[in-house]
């Protein structure tokens, strides 16, 4: 497999959890969904249960005309609010497959850049919990749970925020403010000119990707410049974390290269 990141943003299916009788282990081993047949539907990730463009569920529901588009008129009023439906109603399964065949000492990470609000990940029958928090990334080293034939089954069960709150009859800023108890975006109970978001933007709301590395992985480099002599004398300071995932010490060459794209595709190195 080639070193680098690949986004998983196609071929997703979604289904309401209360309509799926199978476990995550069964979905990712013996009983994967065959395709967009009820209760499963086409969905695209990232996105939230209700909204998202490239989205999982409400966009799909809208596309399939199951519910009206909340962006027009008072249609939002016709979509049941999570306070009335209960959290299970907006707890959704997302399912996809991906192909990846590693060579000897390669490693694979499964990355979620944003989950609202917590999730359970099943990959080929193995379960991992993604803890709560809308604004945190998750990176799982899944090297040991990949299928030898390279074909992998991924299912994610996403749970809404713990405190979705109830929208008072007269609305108001942030509804009954319950949402503020969680570490999540606060406008979703309604604000000034924003109508309440019925699922509180539950979902895989940001990028999902897999990244292939060799034994050593680069993590979160930090770039800082310091500037002197009226900006004539400038230094670039770069710090990075590095993780050696192999059982042997790794003799590394670390390279940093700075290039400037000039007009006309000419590069200054």
């Amino acid at each position: 497999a080639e070193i680098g990141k690949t986004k998983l943003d196609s071929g997703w299916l979604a289904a309401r959890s209360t309509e799926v009788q199978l476990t995550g282990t069964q979905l990712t081993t013996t009983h994967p969904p065959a395709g967009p047949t009820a209760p499963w539907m086409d969905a695209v990730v990232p996105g939230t249960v209700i909204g998202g463009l490239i989205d999982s569920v409400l966009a799909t529901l809208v596309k399939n005309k199951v519910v009206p588009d909340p962006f027009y008129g008072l249609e939002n009023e016709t979509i049941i609010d999570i306070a009335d439906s209960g959290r299970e109603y907006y707890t959704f399964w997302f399912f996809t497959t991906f192909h990846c065949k590693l060579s000897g000492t390669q490693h694979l990470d499964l990355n979620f850049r944003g989950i609202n609000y917590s999730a359970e990940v099943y990959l080929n029958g193995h379960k991992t919990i993604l803890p709560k928090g809308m604004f945190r990334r998750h990176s799982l080293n899944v090297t040991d749970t990949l299928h030898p034939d390279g074909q992998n089954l991924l299912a994610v069960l996403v749970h809404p925020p713990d405190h979705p709150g109830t929208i008072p009859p007269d609305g108001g800023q942030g509804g009954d403010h319950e949402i503020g108890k969680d570490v999540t975006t606060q406008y979703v109970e309604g604000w000034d000119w924003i109508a309440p978001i019925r699922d509180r933007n539950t979902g895989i709301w940001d990028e999902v990707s897999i990244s292939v590395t060799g034994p050593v992985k680069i993590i979160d480099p930090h770039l800082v410049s310091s500037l002197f002599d009226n900006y004539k004398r400038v230094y670039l300071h770069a710090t990075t974390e590095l993780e050696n995932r192999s059982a042997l010490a790794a003799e590394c060459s670390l390279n940093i290269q700075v290039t400037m794209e000039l007009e006309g595709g000419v590069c200054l190195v």
Partner: protein
Amino acid sequence: EHLQTQKLLIPARACVQYTFPQIFFYKPNLWWPNGMGKQSLYNINISVDVKGYGESDLWSHLFGFRKIESHIDKATGGRLFKVNGQPIFIRGGNWIVSDGLLRLSKKRYKTDIKFHADMNLNMIRCWGGGLAERPEFYHYCDIYGLLVWQEFWITGDVDGRGVPVSNPDGPLDHDLFMLCARDTVKLLRNHSSLALWVGGNEQVPPEDINKALKDDLKLHPFFYNSNGI
């Protein structure tokens, strides 16, 4: 002269932090906000090769050399911003989210943010009731020269000043708030357009969170002498 290689031995199953020797640039092209000059950006590529294996991982980012500073101006009582030593008159816009249902895409961000630049604005304030905006948002702010004022997820209305008054101590899990804040800073900190982190909207975060944020986000002493003449 802008290619550097360092040797490093990493023990088995270990996680290390490594700082390259600083790289010197003479009169590099500086990054300027919209209306003050070009938004010069450099491609920074970091890669690691492992003996006996080859290239193990690589990372790249567009980076602009600039110095952004701000302080409360005694004369006006307002926050005065400087970029590369030049005071800048802030023409800013409020940003809630690109779409309430999080219909987020690169194309949408590019359109929204270019629109702000075309309106001759030079700052976007990301409201605390919305999101910690995404790398794609910041990428286009880097490209079009929009400085970003990014608030964390605290608002007066929901945290202690609303009607009814509620959540005076913010979210229930302060450790989770700080974990998310630290991870968000790591996600966004290399963007040239990031000008200011702000605790929340119309509200100061609970004391312990506010103190932790200030501690984590203060300038590293090493850089205090930066920009000395």
